[in-house]
């Protein structure tokens, strides 16, 4: 079966690819679509229809919505979700899954581990998550990365005047995602990441691909 992955940017694409590899998911042909969150939401029903013929794994940030299940219900608009359509909603952004691997994140980006908060339980979520005072990607690059001893990471990741991310955000994160990020360790601190792995593995066990 063909696989289409849908995500919001290059960094989340790399996260999806790592997770797919972690789950040893096999497929015939891989297509990748990167769209802003709003556009993914607009196309949600179309992806659901497309999933009749192929496996679609979608990764969306929860952002300001209260909880993943409410957001999913809203997006489905009373339609039934196709079983080949695996919707994953990161709490609150996929970047929080990266920092959920606290020890490796701290070591790789050379930031003191005490600057990285512990995962905790939020009233809206089932399990624990990395929770930040505001949008996790922004909190990481504005409040945590500036403590890095590596000035190059600070330059690449810290957003300047009005920018939402650093000038080389993807370049800085990609090697970490591809080579360092320990998914087993990150899962301990993120129920939403755990849920995604579980969803893919469950689908895999039900379906014979190829």
């Amino acid at each position: 079966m063909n696989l289409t992955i849908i995500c919001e940017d290059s960094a989340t694409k790399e996260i999806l690819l790592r997770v797919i590899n972690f789950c040893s998911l096999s497929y015939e042909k891989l297509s990748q679509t990167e769209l802003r969150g709003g556009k993914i939401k607009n196309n949600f029903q179309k992806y659901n229809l497309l999933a009749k013929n192929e496996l679609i794994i979608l990764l969306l940030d929860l952002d300001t919505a209260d909880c993943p299940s409410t957001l999913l219900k809203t997006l489905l608009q009373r339609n039934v979700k196709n079983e080949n359509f695996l919707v994953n909603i990161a709490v609150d952004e996929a970047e929080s899954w990266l920092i959920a691997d606290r020890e490796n994140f701290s070591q790789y980006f050379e930031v003191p581990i005490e600057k990285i908060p512990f995962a905790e339980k939020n009233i809206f979520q089932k399990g624990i998550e990395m929770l930040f005072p505001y949008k996790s990607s922004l909190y990481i690059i504005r409040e945590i990365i500036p403590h890095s001893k590596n000035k190059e990471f600070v330059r690449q990741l810290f957003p300047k005047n009005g920018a939402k991310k650093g000038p080389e955000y993807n370049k800085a994160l990609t090697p970490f995602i591809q080579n360092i990020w320990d998914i087993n360790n990150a899962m301990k601190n993120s129920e939403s990441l755990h849920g995604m792995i579980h969803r893919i593995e469950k689908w895999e066990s039900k379906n014979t691909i190829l």
Partner: protein
Amino acid sequence: MIIKRLILHNWKNFQEVDVDLSKRTFVVGANASGKSNFLDAIRFLRDICKQNGGGLQYAVNTVRGGIGKIRCLSAKKDSNIRIEVYLGNEDDKHPKWIYLLEFSQEKNKSKGIFFAKIISEKVFSQKENRWLLERPEKTEGEDEETLKFTFLEHALQNKSFRDIYNAFQQIEYLNVVPQLVRESVTYQLSKEKEDFYGRNFLERIAKKSEKDKKGFFNQINEVLKLAVPQFKDLEFEKDNNGIPHLRAKYLHWRFNGAYQTEEQFSDGTIRLIGFLWAVLDSNNTILLEEPEINLHIAIIKQLPEFISNILNRTGKNNMQVIITTHSYDLLDHLGINLEEVLLLENSAEKNATNVICVKNIEEVKQKLEAGFTIAEAIITPSSLKEIEKLNQIKLF
């Protein structure tokens, strides 16, 4: 050293411009808003300093067809043209150098020909904290003939501010037109001329040492491997007539691939190679006209980060990239900051164009605060207000 600030007076469609430029600058505006004219002010400085035949008269008359083609149509009483440039390193609070040139049109009465006459030429050095040059007030022996030439263009007279000369001389403009690159005939026509649209791009490669060429081609091949996967082993060669060519293996043509030259390369591939060559080779100000043309959206999205990465490499201290663009996808990169984007807006009141850094546009700042991206905040103000009516025009 980069161009940190540019002030223009009566330059083409700009009556007054005063903008700061970043190491990476995006110039955005509707069609015919003057993006190329804006870049042309910087090219003008390069033309003055061009080796073998450059100079003020060359830049004004030979390249641009005279003052009448340069001067802003809405120029009124003060019809002089002025360009003022601040140069310095990226993080300098104060410019290392200021260069100012003001000129107007004069007619040689006996010969009946027009020429550009210098009204003022000034050079400020931060190191010495004074104006090193103030023409014509503080120079001796000036007459109608001397005021046809800048001190900047003369090696003897620009000795104390040679840094400015070097910086201007190395400014590069790139707008590779694939159709011209493909035509060998144009090479012979443009060989001796400054032709940034075609064959000289290959000639520039030809002039590099074998070692440099090899290094650059290795890097270009690395990028092409990702951007044009069926394309392999890009090389450079000269044919029997000494005409330079690019050659690469296309894997999808035959089982083992088949060699093709630039004549068969796609438009996008040629433009991408031209772009890569320019940014990898240069350590100067590069002016790039709409690099998104012919490129796939996935490549365009990567360009801002790719350029940022190159600008921050060792040995690229003097490199600056000024890019004109219409591309939503290029500007949609979340790492672009407000100081890096200049917006060109036609002003109905002044009958001229304003150039505004978007950090000073309240509407854009409000949109960003509301969560929109720079592309979303910029493309609407830069678009044409009534373009939808295009489909209502009765053509037949």
